[in-house]
């Protein structure tokens, strides 16, 4: 008898079959991987399990008994706990208040702070998860916030732990420590479902893994009997080829395309940063680092929307430090922003409008009238060239999938042959096919002599694409590695601010 059994689960949303006849066994004491591309139905399935949605058909059995999970309270009562991909924490409350939220020790109508603190301390000692119960959650780094989320589940006596892409925001060392915690919890009698799309995590952590594709189970594998490429094949439905990287041209033939000298940002409450770096033509310079260590400040300074910038930024040898954003773009600076939905695109507008957002003013004719027909025709051409899948160019960008939306951004940025491309998390949230397309485009630009600055929290991506990797910590570049010399461990240490004597600077 399995600890958890899902039988024939089916869930439809208007126009979408999110889960189709899903059956799944999770044995007591295992860490069960759940993998699949975005949109494969992983999150929907977990929402059903946690009572946030109701299945249209099928049943859920815990310890052989059929259970109805109408809401999260039911799930909690049944011992099911979930760490959401986006943390469900209240920033202005303390660690202890967050852990106990909704199930607080009371003293009449009052919160019993004394008992609350004792309970949280006991819990954190019992499971070896150190936290300061009185710290405000808003002051904690991401890794610790996740620890609070895990304690939140344990506080409610969860026996089945669901973790939705928990490693996405962590450094490699934090991921290792998370794995250690999960192994300890499982050894202590818990069972876990681990959702991810990183295959090496499945191989390292899980005993078995179930692969979803387009809402269906396409296989459950024992990790000892399989390989990452086998799982990838199941996820995508066909063989997956890794992007092929040729050697970068020798240093002597390269010219610096983007130079950042002693860049400091001192505006308002922002972290002061001090950054020096050079991106050569024909190379991809990867910037590793935990989010919030100066990436955003660097990008804002490069594209010219930050206040209080000192130092110098050179584009192809010419200073653009005091030049407005529009001029920077005209001189060949392109940007793939971190959040395509809010920073990269205007959701309410059509594809063709978004495609012309960068240079519409150059097309204006007498009296500022825009040649709409011409702009639409140009957009239609880009749809073809960049393989954007939409009925036509008048479709609203808000209705596109993540991959297609990102292609719109890329088409707009690349159509004017930039000399430097700043790409921030360009493949985040994309399925393997679309991510591959984006990576190909980056490599194509590199081949064409463009300087690419790739800022990413995904170390695998950085290691796969970058010619050199620089690590940003606390607003500074603390280490730089040529690709051949870069290892996950070294980069991870630098991301955590640990300096090493053998840094190659």
């Amino acid at each position, binding site marked *: 008898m399995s600890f958890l059994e899902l039988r024939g689960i089916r869930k439809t949303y208007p126009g979408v079959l999110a889960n189709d006849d899903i059956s799944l066994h999770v044995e007591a004491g295992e860490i069960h991987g759940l993998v699949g591309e975005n949109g494969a139905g992983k999150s929907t399935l977990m929402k059903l399990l946690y009572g*946030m949605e109701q299945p249209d058909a099928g049943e859920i059995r815990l310890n052989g008994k059929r259970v109805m999970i109408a*809401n*999260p*309270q039911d799930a*909690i009562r049944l011992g099911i706990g*979930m760490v*959401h991909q986006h*943390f*469900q*924490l*209240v*920033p*202005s*409350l303390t660690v202890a*208040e967050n852990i106990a*939220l*909704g*199930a*607080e020790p*009371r003293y009449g*109508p*009052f*919160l019993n702070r004394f008992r609350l603190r004792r309970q949280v301390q006991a819990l954190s000692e019992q499971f070896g998860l150190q936290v300061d119960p009185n710290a405000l959650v808003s002051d904690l780094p991401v890794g610790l916030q996740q620890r609070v989320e895990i304690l*939140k589940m344990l506080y409610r006596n969860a026996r089945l732990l669901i973790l939705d892409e928990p490693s996405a925001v962590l450094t490699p060392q934090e991921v290792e420590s998370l794995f250690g915690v999960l192994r300890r919890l499982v050894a202590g009698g818990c069972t876990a479902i681990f959702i991810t799309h990183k295959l090496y995590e499945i191989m390292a952590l899980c005993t078995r893994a179930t692969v979803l594709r387009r809402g269906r189970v396409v296989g459950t594998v024992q990790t000892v009997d399989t390989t990452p490429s086998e799982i990838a094949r199941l996820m995508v439905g066909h063989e997956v080829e890794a992007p092929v990287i040729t050697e970068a041209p020798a240093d002597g033939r390269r010219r610096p395309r983007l130079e950042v000298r002693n860049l400091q940002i001192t505006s*308002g*409450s922002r972290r002061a940063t001090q950054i020096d770096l050079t991106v050569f033509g024909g190379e991809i310079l990867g910037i590793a680092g935990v989010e919030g260590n100066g990436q955003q400040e660097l990008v804002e300074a490069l594209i010219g929307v930050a206040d209080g910038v000192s130092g110098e930024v050179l584009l192809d040898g010419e200073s653009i430090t005091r030049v407005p954003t529009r001029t920077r773009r005209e001189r060949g600076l392109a940007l793939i922003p971190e959040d395509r939905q809010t920073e990269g695109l205007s959701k309410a507008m059509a594809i063709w409008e978004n495609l012309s957002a960068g240079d519409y003013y150059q097309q204006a004719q007498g009296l500022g009238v825009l040649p709409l027909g011409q702009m639409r025709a140009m957009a239609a051409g880009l749809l073809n060239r960049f393989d954007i899948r939409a009925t036509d160019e008048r479709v609203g960008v808000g209705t596109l999938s993540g991959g297609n939306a990102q292609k719109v951004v890329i088409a707009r940025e690349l159509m004017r042959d930039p000399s430097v491309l700043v790409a921030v998390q360009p493949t985040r949230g994309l399925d393997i096919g679309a991510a591959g397309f984006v990576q190909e485009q980056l490599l194509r630009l590199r081949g064409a002599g463009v300087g690419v600055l790739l800022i990413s929290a995904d170390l695998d991506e950085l290691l796969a694409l970058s010619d050199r990797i620089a690590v940003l910590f606390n607003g500074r570049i603390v280490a730089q590695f040529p690709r051949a010399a870069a290892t996950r461990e070294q980069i991870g240490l630098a991301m955590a601010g640990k300096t090493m004597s053998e840094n190659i600077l």
Partner: protein
Amino acid sequence: MDSLDLIVNIAAATLRLGTPLILAAMAGLLSLQVGQVNIGLEGLMLAGAFTVVAVGFATQSVLVGLLAAIVVGMLLAAVFTLVVTRLKANLIIAGLALNLLVSGGTAYLLSVLFGTSGTFSPPDLESLPSLYIPGLSDLPVLGRLLFSFSPLVYMSWLAVPLVAIFLYRTVPGLHIRAIGQNEEAARSVGIPVRARQYLALMLGGALCGLAGAHLAVGDLALFREDMTAGRGFIALAAVYFAAGRPGFSALACLLFGLFEAVQFRLQLASSTPPQFFQMLPYLMVVVTLALISARKEWRKGWS
């Protein structure tokens, strides 16, 4: 002695005029903390003012009128909650609608029920009795400053620590703050989000009912159309510039009360049209708000 007299008079007027603001500000604070900022405070107050006069007149008891004002405030707040939560209406529009509804509704009822318009001052309705403690109330300065008001003034002083304790020391208060910051998180741990939203906003409704009642029967006993005159918005401004902290919100309200008290004095002492002075307190609010945010920016620049 004259100038002392003047200062005491203005101080006492400040406390009286600050009362409805403080009560409404506590209501605004609750709505802000639960994440459903209620710009309909104005309407809720006006409904309270009308109810206390109408019901007080009908029952010949200002106390019954007061209770009715509280109930009406809570009912209207409940409707507001329903509209902005379950029916997912826009907060701004729902709040404005509430204000317009009450403004028009009270004028209409005034004419239908009492056959009058503008001001309704029932001859045999008395204002709330002022506190009189033999000995204490007769003290030369303190007596007039601390022991000479209608009970609602003291209630407003009490409301501030009570709201603070409720929000920061009790479990429902903790839930309300959690909902305001991250509703999804609150839902995911099984907090009854809807019930807490009703709680916070209906408590606010009761406080607004009291605030309106003070305007109508605190000193005089009359209802005038739109007699709240923007006080609901001033209260909300006070909450914002105190960054949601109860004590500072109340102080901000008293500051506006002071502007109003001084304005009345100036009106009496000058031949300039009174409308000019009536404008001053509102102008001061704008200036104060601008100064405060300018100071924030200035500080940021130096940190």
